[in-house]
């Protein structure tokens, strides 16, 4: 069967459109279907990670001081480029400049503003730090007019106070 639109190529896609009078069927070739904006399949992106990590190529070239190995786990930026995974937490210090740049490209930002972590050793000061953190988040919630969130944060602050 030929494509209803170009009448040249084989029709491979059947499109059912709902118009006022009811359903109308079109037989289209792949190119005409694409031109008319019909998606033939819906599938999950194959590997968003690869796209995400593309900027690494550039980042690698800019930091000669970081060519070498992580002093803690021994992995290199090249290992990261190959696997998409860092070797250990210390890699973030070993390759700080490159990673800051990468984080900025990937997330649009390199500064963490979420939950602040206090290690078990620092725990006694935990409540105080938690309170400062919550007040900070409350202020932002109010600024952004997220009132439900603000109410929830205010309740949590009251409990700590």
């Amino acid at each position, binding site marked *: 069967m030929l494509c209803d639109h170009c009448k040249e190529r084989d029709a491979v896609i059947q499109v059912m459109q*709902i118009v*006022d009078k*009811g*359903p109308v069927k079109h037989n289209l070739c792949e190119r005409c279907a694409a031109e008319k904006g*019909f*998606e033939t399949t*819906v*599938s*999950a*992106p*194959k*590997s*968003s*990670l690869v796209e*995400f990590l593309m900027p690494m190529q550039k980042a690698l070239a800019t930091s000669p001081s970081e060519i070498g190995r992580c002093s*803690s*786990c021994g*992995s290199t930026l090249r290992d990261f480029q190959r*696997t*998409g*995974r*860092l*070797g*250990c*937490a210390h890699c*973030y*210090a070993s390759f700080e400049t490159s*990673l*800051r740049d*990468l*984080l900025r490209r*990937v*997330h*649009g*930002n*390199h*500064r*963490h*503003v*979420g*939950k602040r*972590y206090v*290690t*078990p*050793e620092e*725990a006694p000061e*935990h409540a105080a730090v938690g309170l400062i953190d919550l007040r900070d*988040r409350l202020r*932002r*919630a109010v600024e*952004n007019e*997220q009132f439900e*969130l603000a109410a*929830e*944060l205010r309740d949590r602050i009251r409990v700590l106070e």
Partner: protein
Amino acid sequence: MTIDLSLLPDGGVSWLDASGENADIVISTRIRLARNVAGYPFAGRARDGERLRILASVREAVHDAPAMREMQLVRVDELEGEDRRLLHERHLVSKELAGLDPQHPVRSGAAVFLGDGLGVMVNEEDHLRVQAMRSGFSLAAAFAAVEQADSDLGTRVPFAYHDEFGFLTSCPTNTGTGMRASVLIHLPGLVLTKEISKVLAGLQHVGLTYRGLYGEGSEVVGNFFQISNQTTLGRSEEELLEDLSRVVRLLIQREEEARRVLLRDAGYIIEDKLWRAYGTLRYARSLSFDEAMNFLSGVRLAVGLKLMAGLSVYTLNKLLIFSQSAHLSYAEGRALSESESNLVRARFVREALAAEAGTAG
């Protein structure tokens, strides 16, 4: 070691029970936090002994935290392949932890602690993946649960954290909050009205992404989409959740509109199509998984449109999980070939629908 899922609270599937908000459109909400234990290489680079020491310290922390003490430990590394597949199909462990990719077999020390709507995977890509699952659209409840578990663990085990970058993770796409919040949503109306591509393309512009039923890399089947935050750094957990929440609410609204349009403009076509889907599920003798998913999608839509009465969303949700291959093998008590699976699946679906057929139709 063979696994007995009946020991888990509600078999680990309380999130399927359709009790949450907008349960006819949103199947479930899941939030996970990626954490690493300070002082050890990440799981992919750690030695066997290091991973076992990590597991031991997490185990101690879980036993020490009153709210987590009842969680059940499953040593994934001691399970046969079929049992690992079962845990993955039930969304209790990731594909990576289950070691289902032939190139990345299961790691020693791979384990999961399971509680009601809560799970802690150990030695996944990150040492810890703390996750909470809830029925329907329930971001606040899921976040409260995962946040509590994170605090319980983080006060007992030192996490890798950086003042500027936040929680440090094996892959920089998770750095910062380490949080991925996802909502599993059924959008047949938007697919049928061909609006879905536009909608999905728009997600990227607001820092969100979509995947199939099984997360990263999985195909979309049965019009089920997992919508989640793409970025994890530079915004607080609450802000990320608010962004996701806003878009999901909009998606629900658009889906409801699409369904109204379909009923108005093509009522009899839709009704015929959906009843045919029901007929196939009710009487077919062999069903592949994708086929079953697509017909279930139709029946689910019919229930949402109130074209079919007497079928519960819970039953349809359970069919999504329990008609998968490893679950069928588990129920039959033996390994099944693909063609045997298709026969058993058809029988299982027939029986489940027949049990509720009294009022349908």
